[in-house]
């Protein structure tokens, strides 16, 4: 064509730093999320070593507080959320028949801000102490008076930066799903995983700004001497809890809804049946999201809200069990009478159902306000949320990764090793957390560094720790599986499970850079399955073959995030006394902050001055398989 823009192709590391391709960004999220998941896992093991026996002094009380804080924070914000984003990025554009997300540049920016926020947070380990006030950072514990190191500053500023990335990602997915669906894909024909991504993104949009404000207020209290949460200055510590949980409870649905979506894809595929009650699944998802915003104070029953408030929040919380129950039954009815194949992916999906139900049941127990006065801040709560987050979300992630791995990399993970992973992880999980229900009921508090012997805590804690090791073994098996698989050639067919139902299975594995040579025409729910049933092997195209427009790779998102990272560090140390005059000058006068902001805004200005015209892939170059191996 006449206007062949000469495109700059980066290679090696620069390729990854500059990419705006959703499939590569998915891999970046996978690697980074996996890395932080590993760190969070090591922290968990250290916690369990400390609690393995009574009166242990494996770590000091201070380090223990840092470990539990960083474990929770890392796992939720830097481990599982990015892994969810990895799967969403890899799958959603393919499921809706799009060539990319609505804003590829922002997609890259979202990833890099998450990564640099996470790195900042973890730098705390080597720069004078990690956050130590729990992942909920309750005030006044997280105020300067009780938390005197820079730990909580790393928490507020690191999470702020990472949260920015999440928000950007959420808006991007919403816009993508609203505007970029293939012709014929109405909302009620969208695959369930796309639906849950859509709703999850909406929750992100309405929940994250609340924590943004909370983190700003806490930063102001700690760095500028503001009085939001300081009683002596007229502030109110319970205000923090309200702000935190009005974000925090929806956050747990940000975590679990994508897992619901994954399960709703995997179970029908491996049952050779369409998802039972598709529309009720959609409405249940929406209802859960809505109710999720109404129940935050069930985390605060013991702060003395009063009986009326407690009763209302208690009832609204229990209501969530109704749409959740609908989902559970729909999965069971999908399997009912199906030709079930227990692949590794499906084992994780089927294992998800009962464990998640158990987490839900303990949730309803906790939602009963009078009972919660007994359960609150004990290991019963720890058991509850690990049943839903690990037994729910992490099993869902494993299922999704086994399921979509061939699509992402063109290689099927070893089924044998996958099944071993499942059994080790599952048994380890039950050993670790089942007994914690009883520890909690017997009165063991959460967040304690040790306990006295002969209170009936000894044996159960040992069991729990052994289980944790076993889960670690399961994760290592998964890593081994990845390494072995990646050494094999990438020969997976388009539809490796042979019963793929949704659009992603209609294109090569891994997909070419432009995903769909021709935008497909969607004629029903489970669009690809429908075509297969009609005797076709491919989707009917909705457009002729033509030149495909692609966005250009750019290092600017990376540079912008580096700028934000520098500004964050500068702000954090702006009040410090350094031994060195130069350091004092550049930090105490906000010079570091300004340098960081100049980098970020400079990159933004570059972006706005030079429009990205992108480049084209011409029809004669469109038959190569996946661009990367």
């Amino acid at each position, binding site marked *: 064509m006449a206007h062949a823009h000469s495109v700059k192709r980066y290679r090696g590391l620069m390729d990854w730093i500059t990419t705006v391709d959703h499939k590569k960004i998915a891999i970046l999220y996978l690697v980074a999320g996996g890395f932080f998941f590993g760190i969070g896992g090591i922290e968990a093991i250290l916690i369990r070593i400390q609690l393995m026996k009574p009166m242990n002094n494996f770590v000091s009380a201070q380090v223990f507080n840092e470990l539990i804080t960083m474990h929770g924070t890392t796992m939720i914000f830097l481990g599982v959320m990015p892994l969810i984003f990895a799967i969403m990025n890899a799958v959603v554009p393919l499921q809706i028949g799009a060539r990319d997300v609505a804003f590829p540049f922002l997609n890259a920016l979202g990833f890099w801000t998450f990564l640099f926020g996470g790195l900042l947070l973890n730098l705390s380990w080597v720069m004078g102490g990690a956050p130590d006030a729990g992942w909920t950072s309750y005030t006044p514990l997280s105020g300067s008076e009780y938390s005197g190191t820079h730990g909580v500053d790393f928490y507020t500023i690191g999470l702020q930066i990472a949260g920015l990335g999440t928000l950007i990602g959420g808006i991007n997915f919403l*816009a993508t799903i609203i505007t970029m669906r293939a012709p014929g894909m109405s909302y009620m024909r969208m695959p369930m995983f796309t639906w849950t991504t859509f709703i999850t993104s909406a929750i992100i949009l309405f929940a994250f700004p609340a924590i943004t404000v909370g983190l700003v207020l806490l930063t*102001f209290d700690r760095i500028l001497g503001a009085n939001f949460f300081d009683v002596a200055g*007229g502030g109110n510590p319970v205000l923090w809890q309200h702000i935190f949980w009005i974000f925090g409870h929806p956050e747990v649905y940000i975590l679990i809804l994508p897992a619901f979506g994954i399960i709703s894809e995997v179970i029908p595929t491996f049952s050779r049946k369409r998802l039972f009650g598709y529309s009720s699944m959609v409405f249940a998802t929406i209802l859960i999201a809505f109710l999720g915003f109404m129940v935050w104070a069930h985390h605060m029953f013991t702060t003395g809200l009063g009986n009326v408030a407690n009763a209302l929040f208690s009832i609204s919380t229990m209501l969530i069990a109704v749409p959740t129950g609908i989902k559970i039954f729909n999965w069971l009815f999908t399997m009912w009478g199906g030709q079930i194949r227990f692949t590794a992916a499906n084992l994780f999906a089927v294992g998800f159902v009962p464990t998640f139900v158990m987490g839900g049941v303990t949730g309803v127990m906790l939602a009963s306000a009078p009972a919660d006065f007994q359960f609150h801040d004990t290991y019963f709560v720890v058991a509850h949320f690990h049943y839903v987050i690990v037994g729910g979300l992490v099993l869902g992630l494993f299922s999704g990764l086994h399921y979509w791995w061939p699509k992402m990399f063109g290689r099927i993970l070893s089924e044998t090793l996958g099944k071993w992973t499942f059994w080790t992880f599952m048994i380890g999980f039950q050993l670790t957390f089942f007994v914690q229900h009883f520890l909690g009921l017997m009165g063991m508090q959460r967040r304690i560094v040790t306990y006295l012997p002969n209170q009936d805590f000894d044996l159960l804690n040992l069991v729990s720790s052994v289980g944790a090791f076993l889960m670690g073994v399961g994760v290592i098996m998964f890593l081994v599986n990845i390494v072995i698989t990646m050494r094999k050639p990438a020969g997976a067919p388009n539809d490796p499970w042979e019963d793929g139902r949704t659009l992603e299975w209609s294109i090569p594995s891994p997909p070419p850079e432009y995903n769909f040579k021709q935008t497909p025409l969607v004629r029903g729910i489970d669009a690809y399955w429908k075509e297969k049933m009609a005797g076709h092997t491919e989707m009917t195209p909705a457009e002729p073959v033509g030149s495909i427009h692609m966005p250009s790779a750019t290092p600017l998102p990376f540079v912008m995030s580096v700028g934000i990272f520098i500004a964050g560090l500068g702000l954090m140390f702006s009040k410090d006394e350094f031994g060195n005059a130069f350091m004092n000058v550049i930090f105490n006068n906000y010079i570091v902050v300004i340098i960081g902001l100049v980098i970020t805004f400079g990159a933004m200005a570059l972006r706005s001055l030079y429009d990205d015209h992108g480049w084209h892939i011409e029809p004669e170059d469109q038959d190569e398989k996946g661009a990367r191996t």
Partner: protein
Amino acid sequence: MTTSHAEPVNDKLPHEPEKATLEGRNKLIAFWLFLGGETVLFGTLFATFLALRGQTNDGPTANELFHLPLVAAATFILLVSSLTSVFAIQAMHKGKRDALALWLGITVVLGIGFLALEIYEFYEYVKHKEFGMTTSAFSSAFYTLVGFHGAHVAFGIVWIGIIIGQLFKKGLTVVTAPKVYVSAMYWHFIDVVWVFIFTVVYLLGKVG
């Protein structure tokens, strides 16, 4: 044509140039969504302010501090700037680039005027009323809420300024039109937020 000034009109531009391309429509939708998030952000700040506005910690109270004529003037300026940004969009829909740039320019100048009054107000409080960030929970909440809004105004000024530059460099096209449109939406949004601040912070502070 009976237009008094001889501005060339770009009549190749579609009627609603901001919605002419997929990129443009994506931008508009994403921006509506973004404003949804901003609403939660300001909602949380308002909730915090309402919770803490009585907590003056022996420092100055709202009633002692606020000088309504000044705030009313600032409000008036900001409301007018919303109007001028509407004129800007009308000029855009007629394909008149210069008129568009002019109205945007006036909007920016009014924004700067508003910001100047706010800075003066803060300066007065800190300098003469001993009312700073650390004085009380009320002061912290006041400066954070009003300051966040002020920072949004400042950002808008820079942003719209850059867009005016782009209009001269690249002209009024289907690429620049969505940017103009979105920045005008943003400007209306911060205007609406200010109306709430005027009511909840200042009026309520004087009477309640």
